[in-house]
């Protein structure tokens, strides 16, 4: 089993709201092999962040992981005691946060924020080790003496990447690691992240809105819709032959690909998590919908090449029109 760096089985997360339980992540399953890069995409509110943070058990009330299993190199995350969990974080699974601008403690120098990481895990830090980590993300050793406010957004995110790889975790979770940065810096930082991830030999789950950008950095892409992982496949396959109508709609809405004529953006809004249609959550917006979709929820269909899609018709390619 521990051939996998990360193994997620039927992960389910709910938020308690005034109007009932909102299932933000619904039976999500996937595996990553060491060094693999998964890009998680989907509309806003589809559950990407919730999935990503669940992997480190960082969901706060009113949210709660209500079911499933998460294993990192075989170790059970959900069964870990608070102290075991603390020791797993950063050492086995690390986070590159979304808010690059405010993810570092403003009153501590960057160096101190490396040192407390080492101290918490019983490791020796030291200027040389920190300098090497900073160098691996393209930063000068002096940065250790700087406070966060003295760094640009891109530099801060590089510091966060260096912190994430510092203890050589098996898995890195990066939630929109570049969304707060401008476009040019975004690519540089993503390149740095991938380089650091390769050097650490870690698998990575990258969350992002931009499917085009993801395609350049990920091996596989997972598409989320209304808390469900509706399709997961290698980048090349998913672009050449999407099996879920929602994936196809996402690809078609990308501006820069050389498709003309048949462009059809997605109309309508995603359903409320408190009021999901009984069958396929995508049915109200799906161009391919049939009566069965409205009553029967599609389970995962396993396809050749380790692909998977949750659509009654996943076995057939999605045709235009």
């Amino acid at each position, binding site marked *: 089993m521990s051939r996998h760096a990360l193994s997620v089985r039927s992960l389910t997360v709910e938020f308690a709201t005034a109007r009932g339980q909102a299932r933000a992540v619904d039976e999500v399953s996937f595996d990553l092999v060491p060094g693999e890069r998964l890009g998680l995409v989907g509309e806003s509110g589809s559950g990407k962040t919730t999935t990503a943070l669940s992997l480190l058990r960082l969901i706060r009330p009113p949210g709660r992981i209500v079911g499933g299993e998460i294993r990192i190199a075989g170790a059970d995350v959900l069964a870990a005691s608070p102290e075991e969990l603390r*020791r797993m*974080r950063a050492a086995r699974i690390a*986070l590159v946060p979304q808010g690059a601008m405010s*993810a570092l403690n*403003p*009153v501590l120098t960057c160096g101190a924020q490396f040192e*407390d*990481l080492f101290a918490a895990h019983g490791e020796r830090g030291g200027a040389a080790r920190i300098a090497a980590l900073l160098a691996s993300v393209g930063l000068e050793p002096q940065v250790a003496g700087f406070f966060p*406010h*003295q760094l640009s957004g891109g530099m801060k995110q590089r510091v966060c990447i260096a912190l994430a790889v510092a203890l050589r975790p098996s898995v890195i979770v990066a939630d929109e690691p570049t969304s707060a940065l401008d476009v040019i810096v975004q690519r540089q930082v993503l390149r740095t992240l991938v380089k650091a991830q390769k050097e650490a030999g870690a698998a990575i789950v990258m969350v992002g809105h931009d499917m085009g950008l993801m395609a350049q950095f990920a091996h596989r892409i997972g598409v989320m819709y209304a808390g469900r992982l509706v399709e997961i496949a290698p980048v090349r396959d998913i672009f050449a032959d999407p099996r879920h109508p929602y994936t196809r709609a996402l690809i078609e809405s990308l501006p820069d690909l050389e498709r003309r004529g048949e462009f059809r953006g997605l109309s309508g809004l995603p359903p409320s998590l408190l009021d999901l249609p009984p069958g396929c959550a995508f049915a109200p917006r799906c161009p391919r919908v049939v009566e069965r979709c409205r009553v029967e929820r599609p389970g995962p269909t396993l396809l050749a090449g380790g692909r998977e899609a949750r659509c009654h018709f996943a076995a057939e390619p999605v045709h235009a029109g």
Partner: protein
Amino acid sequence: MWAYVANRIGLAAVVVLIALSVNFAIPRIMPGDPVEQQLAAISAAGGQTGDMAEAAKALRQRFQLDRPIWEQYLGYLWNVARADLGVSVANYPQRVSEIVLSGLPWTVGLLGLSTLISFGLGTLTGALMAWPSAPRALRLLALPLVLVSAIPYFVIGLVLLALLGIVWPILPVAGGYPFGQVMNADLPTALGVLKHGILPALSIVLASLGAWALAMRGMVVSVLGEDYMMLAEAKGLTERRIFLAYGVRNALLPQFTQLALKLGALVSGAILVEVIFAYPGIGYKLYVAIGQKDVFVVQGIVLLLSLSIAAAMLILDLFYPLIDPRVAARSS
């Protein structure tokens, strides 16, 4: 960095100069001869104790009203620089600086200590009240703290005085040390001073504890939502480290500003408590001087008030960059 320091010191100097000038101007813009006025007021109030003619002479000499105004001003600054604040009219020839100095240790001791105690206790309580994994019982403290902090400190003082001083007389109700006893640097004196300080200190601590706790609780709650708190947890730091170095440390910044302001306004902070307990501090002296219409003493104390606020602000400004590294960068 040095520009920042020079800037702050300059600012403090301006504030001090303004305070001095106002203090200089007030007796001079009052209509009529200030000396006659004061002597008349004092005899009318029956407060005069010293030699009237001597007092009048000393006062005239002090005002130097026959000199040009700038000479008067320079003379005044020179006097203040030598800590010469003039003489008390009501208790001629006692010097104002003596009266002020005799009250200062009492006030600084009583108010300084009780302010620090309620700051420390309140801040810690507030931080724990907001911390998710702290005992639930702490959260129940919120209501009583709100209620008590809504009561003015002198009302708390009166209640304590009635309860512990009169109904159930276990503590002295007036003065700073046992009446009639000579002050020595020995244990009985120290215990006497301590015993006399308990009730006034308790009323100040009780009255201000809630405000510290509630402000800190609010700050910690908002800090909990910060991204760096999530990253601290993701780094696997111990909860103790996250609480102290990430949570409390950041939430403390506005508390320090409040503390400096409170310490600066120390002298005027609890005049009524000193009056209620006849505590021999600056506040009590001010109260007595106002009653005796002893203008120079009042003036001297008011000047001390403005100077101590200016000093507290300067100290805060100079130390703040050490606790919040963003400040020096922002303001220079």
